């Protein structure tokens, strides 16, 4: 065993490597990005022993992982919470097919929405899919629980979810990792029996019945898991889930006479909860996310003669990330602290100096200033275009929604309809709606902001950029006459404006590729590599 200083994300990645995975699958998304990146940088990835390539999107990633499991190799699929919405279909169904080699789904939630459009709690997905969930509370548990999750996945032949939150993802801590000699030996696995994963109704019915039947065993696993601990002391009790335990302990510093149930593995073992509730009068349920356990505990009718407090009761904030100060307040242990300085000038995030999006937005805004355009947009750095001085983003909903929503608006007869989407987001979920728009020749303009990278999450490779992107567009049936390439530069503003106007004024689908590499990128393609030598503006 040796100690290392690892981010929560890195501890998970290291555990997956130590668990002997054959592949890691993911699409970039804060706060999960660093899991895949850690694995991809590992020697095992460069040697080919572990497959690690970014997937097109989370659904693809999950299915790739499932395929790898089927052939008998362990796999890790990691994503941010909203990525699981995209991958929900294979995830829910894989609980019915089951897995062959261990499959661990790592999902990183973002309570407080540091870098996301919502703060959904993935434990509800796990509960819904009826698979085991681990919820590590610190970096060491992140490492330990992933090893445990692979073992459980193979034992119960089910995918296992590991749920973490941003704070753990992006916090470093000491982690005791196994040395080479201590690594588990993984049995060679055969392919599963033919047809057993074929979810036609007849087979699916029996698989689902088996899954429901397995639940009792899963609860029993949780009951006896060292991840779940019960400590009975005073009449005041707390239930902590995952990282929430840290905040409670920080507030109490081990003092006080609290009874404490900590949950790190699900399904919730009812017996442990009952023992705590029997012992205590007042129970504070602390969950960094939605109130899953509190809801189950209170149910519709509540617990007679007991005070159950938490996010539902209003004793903890209904939304947002927990922290030691919230806990201290709820437990009546708040300390004095200096007042924050209220009058400091804010420094909101902003597009970098020289960012190509600035020039793209300037051109779009100028080109459409005489009209009342609908500007649908998407997920990426360019979402910052919502702020002044650009105000060039009217919507941001989910990956790819810009094109689909624009298509909907165009079908409603609205004009002018524009949407902005990044090259990587386009690959993720923009191609399917564009295919529909091309077939319908919808009266709308798609502006693809091709900066040749996935910028916001830290410069990951993009699958549809440069000439490759052009081929995709043409292959989808977009009329080449109405595919334009502009180079978003200050001194090209006039021609870019003219080009966008021309595209918008065309009755039918037009696509403008606004191509210039991200200024932060460490591997910027040349203008030629971005296909700009063929752009009309370059010839002018």
């Amino acid at each position, binding site marked *: 065993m040796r*100690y*290392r*200083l690892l*981010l929560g994300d890195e501890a998970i990645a290291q555990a997956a490597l130590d668990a002997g995975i054959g592949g890691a699958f993911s699409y970039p998304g*804060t*706060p999960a*990005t*660093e899991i895949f990146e850690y694995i991809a940088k590992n020697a095992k990835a460069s040697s080919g022993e572990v497959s690690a390539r970014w997937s097109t999107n989370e659904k693809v990633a999950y299915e790739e992982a499932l395929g790898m499991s089927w052939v008998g190799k362990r796999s890790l699929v990691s994503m941010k919470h909203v990525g699981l919405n995209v991958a929900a279909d294979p995830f829910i169904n894989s609980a019915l097919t089951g897995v062959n080699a261990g499959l661990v789904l790592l999902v990183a939630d973002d309570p407080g929405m*540091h*870098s996301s459009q919502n703060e959904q709690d993935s434990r509800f997905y796990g509960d819904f899919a009826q698979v085991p969930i681990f919820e590590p509370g*610190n970096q060491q548990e992140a490492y330990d629980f992933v090893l445990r999750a692979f073992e459980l996945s193979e034992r119960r032949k089910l995918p296992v979810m590991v749920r973490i939150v941003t*704070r*753990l993802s*992006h*916090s*470093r*801590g*000491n982690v005791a990792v196994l040395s080479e000699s201590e690594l588990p030996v993984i049995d060679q696995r055969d392919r599963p029996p033919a047809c057993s994963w074929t979810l036609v109704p007849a087979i699916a019915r029996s698989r689902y019945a088996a899954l429901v039947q397995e639940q009792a065993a899963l609860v029993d696993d949780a009951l006896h898991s060292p991840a779940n601990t019960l400590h009975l002391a005073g009449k005041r009790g707390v239930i902590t889930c995952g*990282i929430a*335990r840290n*905040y409670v*302990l*920080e*507030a109490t510093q081990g003092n006080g006479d609290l009874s404490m149930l900590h949950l790190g593995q699900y399904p919730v073992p009812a017996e442990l909860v009952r023992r705590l509730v029997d012992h205590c009068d007042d129970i504070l349920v602390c969950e960094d996310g939605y109130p899953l356990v509190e809801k189950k505990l209170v149910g519709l009718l509540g617990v007679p003669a007991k005070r159950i407090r938490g996010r539902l009761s209003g004793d903890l904030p209904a939304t947002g990330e927990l*922290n*030691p*100060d919230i806990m*201290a307040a709820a437990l009546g242990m708040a*300390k*004095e*602290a*200096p*007042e*924050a*300085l209220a009058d*400091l*000038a*804010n*420094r909101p*995030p*902003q*597009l*970098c100096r020289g960012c190509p999006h600035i*020039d793209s937005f*300037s*051109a779009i*805004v100028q080109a459409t*200033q005489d009209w009342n355009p609908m500007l649908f947009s998407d997920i990426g*750095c360019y*979402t*910052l275009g919502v702020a*002044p*001085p*650009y*105000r060039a983003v009217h919507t941001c909903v989910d990956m790819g929604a810009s094109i689909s929503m624009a298509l909907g608006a165009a079908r409603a007869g609205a004009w002018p309809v524009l949407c902005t989407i990044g090259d990587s987001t386009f690959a993720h979920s923009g191609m399917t709606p564009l295919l529909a728009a091309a077939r319908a020749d919808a009266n709308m303009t798609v502006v693809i902001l091709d900066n040749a990278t996935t910028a*916001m*999450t*830290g410069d990951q490779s993009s699958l549809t950029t440069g000439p490759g992107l052009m081929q995709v567009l043409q292959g989808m049936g977009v009329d080449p006459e109405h595919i334009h390439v502009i180079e978003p530069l*200050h001194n090209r*503003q006039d021609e870019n404006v003219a080009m966008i106007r021309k595209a918008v004024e065309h009755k039918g689908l037009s696509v403008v590729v606004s191509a210039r590499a991200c200024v932060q990128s460490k591997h910027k393609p040349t203008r030629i590599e971005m296909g700009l030598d063929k752009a009309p503006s370059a010839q002018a």
Partner: protein
Amino acid sequence: MKQDIILAGVGGQGILTIAEVISQVALSQGLQVKQAETHGMSQRGGAVQSHLRLSDAPIYSDLIPLGSADLVIAVEPLEALRYVQYLKPDAMLLTSVGAFVNIGNYPPVEDVLARVAQWPQHALIDADRLARAAGSGRSANMVVLGAASRFLKLDQAALEQAMAERFASKGERVVEVNRRAFRFGRTAAAAYLLGLDKGGTSVSVRTWVDSLSTEHLAQPEPPDAPYFEPLASGEQLSGAEIAAVEGTLQNVYDEGRKTLFEHEVYQIIQLVGAISPPKHIFVPKDELLSDQALDSFPGEKVVCKLVATDVVHKTDAKAVVFAPKRSDLVRGEIDRLMQRHADKDVRGVLVVEFVEHTHQVGSELFVGIRATREFGPVIAAGLGGVDMELLATRMRPGQAVAKSPAADLKAEDFLEQFKRTVAYELLSGQARGHERSVSDGELLRCFRAFLLLAQRFCVDRGTDGPDLAELEINPFAFRGQRLVPLDGRARTAPAAKDSAPRPVANIAALLEPSSIAVLGASATSMNFGRIILNNVLQAGYDPQRLYAIKDGLRELDGARCVASLNDLPHVVDLLVVAAGAEQLPKIVTDTIACGKVRSAILVPGGAGETEGSAELAVEVQKAIALGRAGQAGGPVFLGPNSLGVLSRPGRYDTLFIPANRLNKHLDQPARRVALVSQSGAFIVSRMSNLDNLNPAFALSIGNQLDLTLADLTAAVGQRDDIDVVGVYCEGFRDLDGLAFERALRDVTRRGKEVIFYKAGRTQAGRTAAAGHTASVAGDYDVALAAAEQAGAIVVETFKEFEQLLELCAALHGKSVSGTRLGVMSNAGFETVGMADALVGPRYRLELAQTGPDTIEDLRAILAHGGLANLVNPRNPLDLTPMASEAVYQAAAQTLLDAREVDALVVGIVPLTAALQTGAEEVGRDTALPQRLGAIFAAASKPVVAVVDSGEAYTPLVQQLRSSGMPVFRSADQAVRSLGRYLTFRANYPTESV
């Protein structure tokens, strides 16, 4: 061991690197670590923070609870303040002073730092500067880490090692730069804390730390701090303010511009905390003004101003429009503005809050600074607006606009100067129909900031960045006694450089040479050289110590000849060069090379002052510079185009004026007067007019290719045998105006008087001056203001120059305790005329109100002289033509002795039979010259005489002057000059007497 740390900065500044290095060391020391970071979207140019917790016991939370952190490590001061709610009361707040300005409403830098400095435990370091000193501006975060190592409970060597390992893959140089950065930061932090311990304020201590050399900073501990005098805040710009302004200037430079845009000017004055500009937003050409931004403007209207590199006078160019505060209207106006000026290099539009004001005279103020060639930084303030420009041309210097060299100026002194302007009279509500529109405190704050900017940026900054040529806010309007800038402009241009230092100690050898050599005297004709040789001898110079550089002769007019400079038997104090101008470069080179000359006078003209001779001047200058480069001292050169030097203490005279043209009275003792003049003819004309001036020194300085006006003024002014210096100046060499001002200050502080005439008053005068002595005449007003503030008596006519020179020379020993004048004459028009002249430009006298004792004494004198019924016993005393010499004498003595009288003017109309005023009478003991002469000699107060009559009475005048008494040829002129003199003496009490 437990330590909770908050790291703060802006995305991209490298705080995570700091956190990682600390964490690694903690891990290697067996500690528990938690380090929470910000990733993702919030990193993009936004505020970023990291919670870092170290402990030898398990750590529960990744987040630090409120009120628990021990240390803030910040790379940016505004960010340092964002997390104070996390701090323990005794936590250390460490931050770099460098402001990262990527938001429009960044507060004044020093305000931010002052808030940091209010925290009980804090340390400020200039990480950006130290990083550059260490070798790379990108190491600023490692400077901060080094500083933090003072406060971390971790092994310092291990920290440095961990840091080095982190950079190892980037090569040895990068490692070394970061090591230096780390050590500089560590020492700078210790120095800052030491300075605070020694009683310094944050600003004064930072100034001291900024002054430490890299050798100091590389030591493990700082040098001992001085004990800090309590320093008024804002006596100079702090390093942080300098860096912030530098950033703005550099940005302009990087964009290839010389002219700053209005909002950049506002940013500069705001960063140094001078004035809060009105609300404004710069909307770049291709961006849109958002509704939200527009809503943030107060009031109902906004002003849209075109921002273009080629439009300076925006109003004239119709580049300013007003619009109601409605986004569609404002955007429309912006579009129209852009379209109207589509042919210009438009960069965008500045949208500014509308400030109510009128253009009426007195409702606008301008304040500006600029870099001048002669005086370096200069500040000016006066009434703003177009009308004022016209009015200003009709006013005397100093009335419309206060203007002064800024290098040594304090804001308080400039405010005093400004208070003497019409502008202040109007702004302070002293003028009729005006209310006070701005407080003195606000003016002072504004002047101070402008002065500090001028002193730091309107100077040659070498490679530190572009120099600020000019920055002006014109106009300021007023709102609630506060200044609100309505327009501003600034530009950069290289400032004048100081010339290389000269071995000025050798000027002593020039003034009193113990040996002289003359080069260029002809053996066959009376050329300039020969005249000079003879003049030196006639002045009484010892021929034994005089050499002529002359091959083939043993002796010339009694002086020993040597073949060449190299043949001089010893080092001579002075070499007079009277050869042709074209030979000068070679002679200068030889003079330096021979090593046998301490000083030299270069007589020839045609080396710079005439058309086509500029190249020759450059050659001479090069020769001097080249020769000086090799050695510490070397000769100093006076001239070229120097008419020469007359030195009574040195018993020599090289003025090449034949004796029959000017009687220099070399037989008479020197008076304690020196003349320093850029024109030799000016000197000899004064000497011709004032034939008893007998100056100790007359120095014709010529083209100042080496020694300058300032050098020589300082040199004679320091001498114990000089009380009065008369200076005639046409133009200064680069920055010599400033040196001259400093020299003047030094001389006047010694209780001496300097009379200063500056040529080049009008544009035509400036052209004439340039034609004459090759000095590009500079800003006349600035020169006058500078000289006046330095304590010189500034005169505007040659007559005034002479008269004040005479007064100063004659009255230096008298004491002046006030400006109350006693006046007597035997002609009524004179007493009336003198009373009429009591008040004039730059002076104010009053008639002494004599007491009853004096009146009684006068009555008795008049009665005794038989004038009881003719003359009123009062001041002014009209004695009538009947008055005799005895009455004159007694009345003069009585008035002079009166307590109420500070100085006496005695008018003598000699056309009366009652007085002995004829040429043959004036020498008699009973004549007035002897009687008044005795009074003058014994008097402790100034006495002057007036003889307003024709040539026939010149003997009377000469006889009067021979007693040392100043004599004027017109009564009103006497009062005017005496008025200047007395006012000056009363305002600048001298220590001597």
